[in-house]
């Protein structure tokens, strides 16, 4: 208990580091010739990374037995939302400079923007209902059901990245591979459980 309370602020500070570096680079000409594009790239990649990190919590806990790690899951998930929101704000405020017409046209006409927007909209209710109060209000079962949306958001978020890239899809596929393995692990556990249950329920012939 004492150890986790000491670790939490460290994790929190570490999760803010990408933002700190971004701000530092912003003030020190470290964002290259096209800083707006760079801000979009970095915040977008960190949103995806935090989604992957959040999805890694449960497998890590099951495989290593390190139960305490679950205590950081909400915070990590909220950081995914945080970077996704910065990413969206960079698009709306910096790239498009609040040009509503262009933004709407982009969302409607261009599938990679559509799916990116949809991903953020999926993360939004998860962030809102991340509090203890909402877990109580929804009930554990329903809350769990709702929060499975992150599986969908993880996939659509990576597709957003894949479709945005001009040609070199190597990195997006690395992200997709990591997300797919994290989801495949869950599928495998779920199938194993079902098989076990089915096996237990086989009527014995006497």
């Amino acid at each position, binding site marked *: 208990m004492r150890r986790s309370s000491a670790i939490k602020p460290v994790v929190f500070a570490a999760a803010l580091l990408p933002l700190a570096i971004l701000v530092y680079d912003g003030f020190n000409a470290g964002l*290259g*010739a096209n800083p707006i*594009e760079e801000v979009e790239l970095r915040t977008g990649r960190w949103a995806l990374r935090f989604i992957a990190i959040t999805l890694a919590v449960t497998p890590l806990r099951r495989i290593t037995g390190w139960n305490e790690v679950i205590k950081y899951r909400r915070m990590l998930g909220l950081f995914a939302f945080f970077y996704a929101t910065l990413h969206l704000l960079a698009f709306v405020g910096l790239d498009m*400079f609040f040009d509503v017409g262009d933004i709407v046209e982009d969302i409607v*006409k261009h599938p990679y923007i559509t799916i990116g927007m949809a991903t953020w909209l999926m993360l939004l209710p998860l962030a809102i209902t991340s509090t203890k109060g909402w877990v109580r209000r929804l009930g554990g079962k329903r809350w769990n059901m709702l929060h499975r949306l992150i599986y969908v958001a993880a996939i659509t978020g990576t597709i957003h990245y894949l479709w945005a890239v001009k*040609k*070199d899809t190597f990195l997006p596929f690395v992200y997709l591979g990591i997300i797919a393995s994290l989801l495949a692990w869950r599928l495998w556990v779920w199938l194993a459980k079902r098989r076990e249950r089915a096996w237990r329920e086989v009527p014995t012939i006497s």
Partner: protein
Amino acid sequence: MLIRRRPELPSSEITDERIYVDRRKFLTASSLFGVAAATGALPGCLGASPSDAQADDKLTPFNDVTTYNNYYEFGTAKEDPAKNAGSFRTRPWSVAVEGMVKKPAVYNLEDIVRPVSQEERIYRLRCVEGWSMVIPWLGFSLAAFINRVEPSSQARFVEFTTLRDPSQMPGVRRPVLDWPYTEGLRLDEAMHPLTILATGLYGRALPNQNGAPLRLVVPWKYGFKSIKGIVKMRFTDRQPATAWNKAAPSEYGFYSNVNPEVDHPRWSQAKERRIGEFLRRRTLMFNGYGDQVARMYAGMDLRRNY
């Protein structure tokens, strides 16, 4: 060799104070006395700014021009070419001229460059990704070289090829594009006075990441048409296959003229971000060079011939 032939074409209109001041450095650096003479004669020319001129076209800083590049042979991230092309060997260099020409040969770079006078051309460069720059190139008209090699009467297209050297170009070790990179122009496009072979920028030798020692610049087309590190020109009667068209035919056509009305299938081409500026600006038809080039495409459906 005085070059007073400041093209009636609008370079990019206004010469930035920096380049004006820079012209001395550029003198000593490249001993291109002619350029200085032309620059001296400049203000008069610039006063009569052509119809498509944009008074707010400022030169993109040298540092941005040389650190934000698409040159996939050296990596696909914008900063990769500047990082990976430093030790690229540009001498000795030769260009093979093949196909339907009367004088096919392998030309040494010096043989190509020495007989022609280098002049400065300030052009807008519009990338298909939606960003743009204004670059003061040094170079010479491609037409001058084509006239030297004498295309035969059947020749209708020119195909250009970039060097493919895995030992020097880490990017070609991965099949991102079908290496070597190739590009092509219709012969009339290649002969157009705006089309140049560039050997430098900002008054100095072309940096490796910008396509040294010899690259094409076709300012009314998306940047990827302006092929870098040219080692071959082949004259042909058939429209050549081009690298990006092969990679994604629905996204990149043979012509690839800058056209704000025809979107890339995945994103809009109506606006662009000028590197160094915050707000996006409207993209101009033919990148603002319509007065000079539009007639080459008269009667063509530019939506189909994207």
